[in-house]
């Protein structure tokens, strides 16, 4: 599903955010990307949905080399992904339902169908009675569930989540993680960046560890530093 070959990312003037990363994630895997702040977790996720471009190396996502995509290619790539962020990134002027339906509409799903899919997802995520609410009146956990519904509305093959529990209390964080596990159980590949070590202990899945831009550990391939 994901392959990174000797990927580096250097920010100007000369700050190496990622150095020679070699990583492989199979279809249907659930992977934690861990490491302290500044380790390069967010940069790596940004490379995967082409918010940033790699300085060196090649990145393959679902059989496509995404380092060579043009604007239209980037849009197509993102239509296959589901993105979840720490700060939710919902539009405050739209209701929960509209926020989710927007993602379906931009890829060409008819409005009625988009709203139906959005409502079904919100209902499955326990937000049936909150679908008409705008984000400012929703709790952090509810907003994150709306964001997850938005990530799922186009049936993604890969979900990338950047610190999805970072702004939530322990209970909400637990609930959000269970949601992401449910998505994984339905066959979707999930890659989660987190610095919360407690989360890694409670949910035992593959952990890829980054430190100062370098891959320093992989629970799937213990002892193989720098490549996995």
């Amino acid at each position, binding site marked *: 599903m994901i392959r990174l070959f000797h990927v580096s990312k250097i920010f100007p003037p000369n700050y190496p955010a990622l150095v020679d990363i070699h990583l492989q994630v199979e279809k249907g895997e659930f992977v934690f990307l861990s490491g302290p702040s500044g380790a390069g977790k967010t940069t790596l996720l940004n490379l995967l*949905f082409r*918010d940033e*471009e790699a300085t060196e190396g090649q990145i393959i996502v679902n059989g496509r080399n995404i380092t060579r995509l*043009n*604007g*239209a290619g*980037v*849009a*197509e*790539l*993102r*239509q*296959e*992904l589901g*993105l979840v962020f720490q700060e939710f*990134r*919902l*539009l405050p002027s739209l209701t929960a339902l509209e926020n989710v339906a*927007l*993602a379906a*509409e*931009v*890829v*060409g*799903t*008819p*409005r009625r169908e988009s709203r139906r899919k959005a409502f079904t997802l919100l209902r499955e995520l326990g937000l049936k009675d909150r679908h008409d609410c705008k984000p400012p009146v929703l709790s952090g956990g509810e907003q994150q569930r709306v964001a997850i519904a*938005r990530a799922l509305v*186009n049936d993604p093959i890969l979900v990338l989540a950047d610190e999805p529990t970072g702004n939530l209390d322990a209970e909400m964080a637990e609930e959000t993680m269970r949601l992401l596990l449910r998505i994984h159980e339905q066959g979707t590949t999930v890659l989660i960046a987190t610095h919360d070590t407690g989360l890694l202990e409670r949910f035992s899945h593959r952990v890829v560890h980054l430190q100062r831009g370098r891959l320093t550990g992989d629970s799937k391939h213990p002892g193989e530093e720098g490549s996995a």
Partner: protein
Amino acid sequence: MRFAQVSFVSRRVLKSLRELPWTHVLTAGPMTMTLFIYVGFLLIQEYLHGLLHGWKSQVQVFAYLDNGAGAVDAMVKQVRSYPEVERVGYVSKAEAWEKFRRSLGAQSGVLEGLNADILPASLEITLAPSHRSRAAVEGLARRLRAVAGISEVEYPEEWVEKLGLLVLGIRWTKWVLGGFLFVATLLIVGSTVRLAFLARRDEIEIMQLVGASAGLIKAPFVIEGMIQGIVGASLALFGLWLVFLLLRERVPSSLAVFVPGGAVRFLDLRGAGVLLVLGLAMGTGGSLFALRKFLKRWGR
């Protein structure tokens, strides 16, 4: 673009028109002004050009006769024999008086008490098309002045030249002022599109994240620009038409004799179409120019 996306874009445009009406008015306003001024100058230029052409096509030389000049027939025959002359008409004192009285219309009462023979008889000489140059007219005037019985010779060449210069001046003003206004309008349209874009930046960022194509993001802004352009051009057209009606009402009917064809004309259907297309191009061009910079990152 799929039908669902066309519907999505239409809804976004309608929403923007509903929620940000003043932004659109501020964009359409300068376009209206620019097109109004530019096309106004174009109409004035066309009108004066037509006038000039009309005058040139009937360049006449007036030879006023001495009081009591005899042998008019012989004089007419002599003048008619000149190669520059196409036609010679004799206007008697009585005819000149009657013509003058008619041209005064309702004010002709001021002539009461005056002798009907105070105006001189004259020859109205029309030049052949091949001799309608200043040199030919001046040459003819010199020869006419030497003819016995002719006291004074007048010709409107000087006026024609002055009018020609005026037309040239308006033509240049139109291009310089028009060019300046077009650039200014494009910058204003660009700025308002940028403001509208910034106002919706969060929405656009999220659309980009969920896989919206650059075309889908740009389309509402471009369509809004088109609508602003069409509305701006329509308002300019309406404003010009009102000014035209006002002038037609107020311009004295005696001036109509100077207008080729006998009537002041407004833009025809083709001209109005060109004006609308010009507005459309301005709105679209301004939007695309502004978006080019904002969506640069999509090209990578």
